[in-house]
């Protein structure tokens, strides 16, 4: 860092002033000539270009391989470079009981109560009810289109039942899919000690296909159905 005596300097270099040797013009011109490349005398290949070409090819090969191996096919969904997109799409099976419980908590619970007992004289109980554990066809229709008028449950008569329509039918305030209706029905048929068969989505869909639109059912109409 101190004063240097470099061989080509005729006087001791002064660090306070950096002396330049070459002019800018010659710098430009000489290097411009150099960049044209040395003439290839006698078709003799020079070692340096070959070595550089070799190294560059090696780097390209390495980079390409690495990219191919760990790019996850450039998918936006792959966050682990070892994964590949789409390989393991999982169809998540929703447990109907869990879904049904949610649906019940969303709507049914306001009248039929969390314990399914309903409210004496106003809202019928679902526990051990012949309507719930009995005919699937009737049960589906009640939830799909609603129920109006007097109804007798477990020997008790409710004079003004007003069950709204829940299915995807005209006049429904809920528009629950068939899957949801099946889930909630399966839930109430198997909760609180009830022990009836689950209801399939297909059965619900068949009912809706058969009767796409109608007013609320009455007890008599329902009892006419097996």
């Amino acid at each position, binding site marked *: 860092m101190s004063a240097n005596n470099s061989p080509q300097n005729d006087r001791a270099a002064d660090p306070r002033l950096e002396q330049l040797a070459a002019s800018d013009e010659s710098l430009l011109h000489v290097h411009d000539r150099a960049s044209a490349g040395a003439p290839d005398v006698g078709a003799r290949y020079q070692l340096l270009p070959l070595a550089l070409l070799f190294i560059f090819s090696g780097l390209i090969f390495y980079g390409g391989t690495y990219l191919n*191996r760990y790019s996850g096919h450039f998918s936006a*969904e792959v966050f682990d470079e070892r*994964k590949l997109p789409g390989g393991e799409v999982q169809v998540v099976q929703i447990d109907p009981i*869990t879904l049904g419980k949610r649906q019940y908590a969303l709507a049914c619970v306001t009248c039929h109560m969390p314990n399914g007992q309903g409210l004496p004289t106003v809202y019928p109980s679902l526990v051990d009810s012949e309507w719930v554990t009995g005919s699937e066809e009737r049960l589906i229709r009640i939830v799909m289109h609603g129920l109006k008028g007097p109804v007798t449950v477990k020997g008790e008569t409710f004079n003004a039942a007003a069950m709204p329509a829940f299915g995807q039918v005209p006049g429904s305030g809920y528009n629950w899919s068939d899957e949801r209706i099946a889930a909630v029905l399966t839930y109430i048929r198997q909760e609180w000690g009830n022990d009836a068969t689950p209801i399939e989505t297909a059965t619900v869909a068949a009912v809706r296909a058969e009767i796409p639109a109608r007013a609320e059912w009455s007890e008599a109409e329902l009892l006419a159905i097996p």
Partner: protein
Amino acid sequence: MKNSAVFFLGLFAVFALSWAGIVLGTQAQLGDLAPHFDEMEEKAFPLRQSGLATRGQQVFQDLGCIACHTQQVRRPDFGSDQARGWGDRQSVSRDYLYQARPLLGNQRSGPDLANYGARAEARELTEADMLVELYNGSDERPPHRFLFEVREILGEPSPKALHGVAPEGYELVPTERALNLVAYLFSLKQTYDFAEAQPYEGGEDAAEGGAQ
């Protein structure tokens, strides 16, 4: 390189490559990323930030918290993030969909905060606990006294005041910013299991087979 036009064209082309690849490419891939609607929960994930949390994020950003805290959980076999209990799964793009400014961070002097809200819930940490921690600091973390006011109790004490910190006759009241900041920290949850966040299960063979 003697011809300016060709030279600039070259510069333009080469840089446009990276611009198109990284800026436009990711924009095309992630620009229309949608939240995932969960049929079961009847909600779309990630959840939207509450207004308080959004303001809290602003405070987090203004104070430069990002200098010490990251907000990204890495996969189980890449770092000890999950072993440290910072999260249960890898963070994915969708987690940050509703954040006005995702603060991924690049220095981990303090713990990762991507999932802080869920952790605080599990440890039953209350907002008041968090505020006291914020006020006191620790050996590694500076105190943030300027987010609080110590004032003399005149008449009715403030309902927001923190207990057991201020001297007799005084109360320690967190400012609006402190409350927002804590609301933000408690809102940080990456608990919903997105399909793309599943850890990689396959062995070496699977990856090799796929790459061909």
